[in-house]
């Protein structure tokens, strides 16, 4: 991508992403009234992650950015995962320790 020829995303792509986001919102609403037991939250989060993914890749143009920018973008979510992993391995295992009961 050179400065004289900026990347222009075809309109079709934007409307497809938009349709995906609207469909995803509808699907989130639809499955919220179903009961999948322990899978309820994973299903809702899976849909949200797909929605966030298309926003990052297409609306935020990460698909057409440099590798370095891609690494920065991915880094945010890797550190977020780390934050959750370390917090939850503490909270979820506290009841295993008789000391704190």
């Amino acid at each position, binding site marked *: 991508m050179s400065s004289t020829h900026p990347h222009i995303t075809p309109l079709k792509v934007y409307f497809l992403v938009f349709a995906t986001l609207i469909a995803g919102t509808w699907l989130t609403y639809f499955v919220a009234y179903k009961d999948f037991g322990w899978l309820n939250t994973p299903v809702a989060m899976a849909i949200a992650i797909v929605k966030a993914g298309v926003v990052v890749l297409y609306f*935020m143009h990460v698909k057409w950015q440099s590798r370095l920018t891609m690494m920065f973008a991915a880094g945010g979510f890797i550190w977020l995962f780390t934050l959750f992993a370390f917090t939850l391995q503490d909270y979820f295992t506290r009841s295993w320790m008789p000391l704190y009961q």
Partner: protein
Amino acid sequence: MSSVDATGLAHHFEDLEQQREAATLGMWAFLVTEIMFFGGLFGAYVVYRTMYPQAWDNASNQLDVLLGAVNTTVLIVSSLTMALAVRCAAKGNNRQVAGFTFLTLLLGFVFLGVKVIEYKHKWDHHLMPGPNFQLDGVVGGHEQIFFALYFAMTGMHAFHMIIGAGLMLWVILKALRNDYTPQNHTHVEMIGLYWHFVDIVWIFLFPLLYLLGKHGHAIGAVVTGGH
């Protein structure tokens, strides 16, 4: 701004492409800090929801799903108009940049307006955490933690949107001055990244705040107070 030439190239960059690359990287570095900032709130959410699942279903059912869904849609449309504004800037069409950005700004205000209606409703129904908190049939009060996080998360999100609205005005002013060219429209591109990020936060907030109590264990808004 004497160190910026007529094409908008600052003196410390080799060319516009390098300048754009640096801005994009810097913007993403900022967005990573934003992800971690909201991540802390989401982390608190996960911990307390795991501790008090029934209280969270009860509290969540006090929210208006329809208003939440409407706002989700409004924000998605605003993300589309923002993306189209950036696309028009890449083609050097400043009039359309101003138009689409104005639409984005309007949709942002619709979102905030709906949020005001929701906050007013929570206030009137004593769902604000504190000494006046009151939820029929509920003992224990862990529902207050849900509402504390509800106001913290949606409040910080709304605050980001208010900042975004200010940025939209800046884009409109620059577009009206014909500042954007196919070679240099990094300004609107970076503000677009910010707006889409705010949209992504809401994509997660909507199911996590509005929909968790709808799976049938606490159907409707009937509060069972199961502690």
